[in-house]
């Protein structure tokens, strides 16, 4: 069992409010990812769940028991640190065996457990080496091994992959996902890398400045971000934003004008929007060359050719951010040669002046049958 309930959890450092009343329920066996920019309080929250940092107010409840005052070991959690926190003077075996040694487990049983964990993590060959001799990915796995042997109800990971290089990170992502399915334990994972969040989570919790900005399945956040913050944080390269003016509102959606072009965005309308300046969002991968419901003529300044796709960046007049388009394959764009970027209204997101999104007319279940019952897939 590994159920977690955060009930109005708050944290102050002196006068500085780091976490502003977090309310969250994590189901048993769920893989939840906390994501957000640096300094938003992810680590702090995780450390409070672990019992490393004190909670200023609110309850942390694990399996129905309020654990605020229990030490970590009594909470049934295990934590994997960003820096791995391996003991440099111990062999891999001893590192993994550490929690069991603390419990004074008998030698034979301990050995069996450590070796089992090592097999899961493909570390069998490395048991006698010191962490210093291992590669980053291997160290990572040792840290996970140390967590596994305790058979905790909840695993906590604090940016475990951020020290690895791109290729290794991709590999480790897959291994972690597999491990989750194998152990069927609850996992809470902190990262500021939205790709990790998207690929591993059953559910993502986006944190912004100590508050939950949105909670939902990865594709829910991708397709129906609740606000500009989530919209720009989820998706890579990030969503393009255009200032538009609302010209009309109807049941079919909201009509907006961008540089003279009018388009009807299929979103649930809201009163009093007409005449206001709204923000239109469109993801780079939804931009195609040639005409669309809205068309922009842009001259890309930088072209990135990845082979499988081509990413073009352009500066729009008066905008600080680049306008970006991801084009399939080796698209025939060249730097400084203007092209027409077409946008379909069906792909558009619309945000009001406070950054809150209008609900899009997209049926998530059409996109992925798992989406509305994410744990079923696990």
């Amino acid at each position: 069992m590994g159920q977690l309930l955060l009930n109005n959890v708050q944290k102050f450092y002196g006068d500085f409010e780091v976490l502003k009343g977090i309310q969250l329920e994590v189901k048993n066996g769920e893989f939840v990812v906390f994501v957000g920019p640096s300094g938003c309080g992810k680590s702090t929250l995780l450390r409070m769940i672990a019992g490393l940092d004190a909670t200023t107010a609110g309850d942390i409840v694990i399996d129905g028991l309020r654990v605020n005052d229990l030490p970590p070991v009594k909470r049934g959690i295990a934590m994997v640190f960003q820096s791995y926190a391996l003991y440099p003077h111990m062999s891999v075996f001893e590192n993994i065996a550490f929690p069991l040694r603390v419990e004074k487990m008998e030698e034979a049983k301990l050995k069996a457990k450590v070796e089992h964990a090592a097999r899961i993590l493909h570390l069998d060959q490395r048991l006698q080496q010191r962490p210093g001799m291992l590669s980053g990915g291997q160290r990572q796995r040792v840290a996970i091994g140390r967590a596994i042997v305790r058979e905790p109800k909840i695993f906590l990971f604090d940016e475990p992959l951020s020290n690895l290089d791109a290729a290794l990170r991709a590999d480790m992502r897959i291994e972690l996902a597999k491990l989750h399915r194998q152990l069927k334990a609850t996992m809470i994972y902190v990262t500021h890398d939205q790709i990790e969040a998207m690929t591993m989570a059953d559910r993502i919790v986006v944190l912004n400045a100590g508050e939950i900005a949105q909670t939902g399945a990865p594709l829910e956040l991708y397709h129906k971000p609740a606000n500009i913050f989530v919209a720009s944080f989820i998706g890579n390269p990030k969503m393009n934003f255009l200032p538009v003016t609302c010209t009309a509102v109807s049941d079919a959606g909201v009509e907006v004008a961008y540089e003279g072009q009018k388009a009807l965005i299929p979103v649930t309308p809201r009163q009093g929007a007409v005449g206001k300046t709204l923000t239109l969002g469109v993801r780079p991968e939804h931009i195609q060359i040639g005409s669309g419901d809205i068309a922009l003529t842009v001259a890309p300044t930088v072209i990135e050719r990845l082979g499988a796709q081509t990413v073009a960046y352009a500066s729009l007049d008066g905008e600080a951010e680049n306008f970006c388009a991801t084009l399939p394959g080796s698209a025939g764009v060249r730097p400084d040669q203007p092209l027409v970027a077409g946008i379909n209204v069906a792909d558009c997101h619309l945000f009001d002046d406070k950054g809150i999104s209008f609900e899009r007319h997209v049926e998530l279940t059409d996109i992925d049958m798992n989406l509305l019952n994410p744990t079923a897939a696990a």
Partner: protein
Amino acid sequence: MSVQRNAVIFAWILLLPAVLYVAAIVAYPLVDTFILSFTDASLKKTTNWVGWVNYSKIFNATFAEVILRTFIWTFFSVSIKMIIGVFGATMLNSAVPGRALFRVLTMPPWIVPMAIGIFMWGWMYNGQFGMISGMLQRFGLVDAPVAFLAQGSTAFWATIITDVWIGVPLVTLYMLAAMQAIPQDLYEAAWTDGAGRFYRFRRITLPLIVPSLITMSMLSLIATFNSFDIIWILTRGGPSGETTTMIIDTYRTAIGSNKYGEGAARAVLICIFLSIFCVCYFRLTSRLASGDKR
């Protein structure tokens, strides 16, 4: 909350043995000294409370001289120690063959019993039979023996140099350690930009060892201020009291003349001076450290 409180209790459990030990052995004598400083304790069997008399007795004309001298002596000794220490560390930090041996060779002044080291210097300074005067005569730089401990001026510097000599190994080692902690890539970056060896030393090494330099000069200052054996063995504070520092004065009063009360008052005064230094030091370093955080 309870987690926090446990940690504090645990910290005290860890500290307790050391604190109790030091308190048991040192605190009592310290307090005793403090109390003594308000009495007329001497060889007499009875002691009387005399209040501030001992302190007021200290402040006379010669004391001002002694204080001033102590400060000058300490200032020069610590500065020269630091300069030579940094110089030595720089040399020993160069990647030349034999440096491991050279490093070991810097340590003897630290390892040899202090008195013995000072006796060796006594030999060196000896005008008739000593190495320095002998060499100077041999090379014709002087024609008569030079007794370095004879004049106040030379004796003053002679005692400083000996003090420097005793302190230098630790300073050198510490500064060497500080230099080795500077990332090599800073030097490489500066070199690619065309900075020569000296320029790199001045603009990178030196500023970056400043925190260590301050720590070391602080510890060195306390030791130097209380440096007793050197002056005592070489000159006994002479000639004409020109190498008498506060600690020599204290020793003379307390042990030589058995005026324990007056001696204690001087000791307390030394501690007060040093404490003021330390507070300034903490202020200074915390400011420097906050400015330097990477």
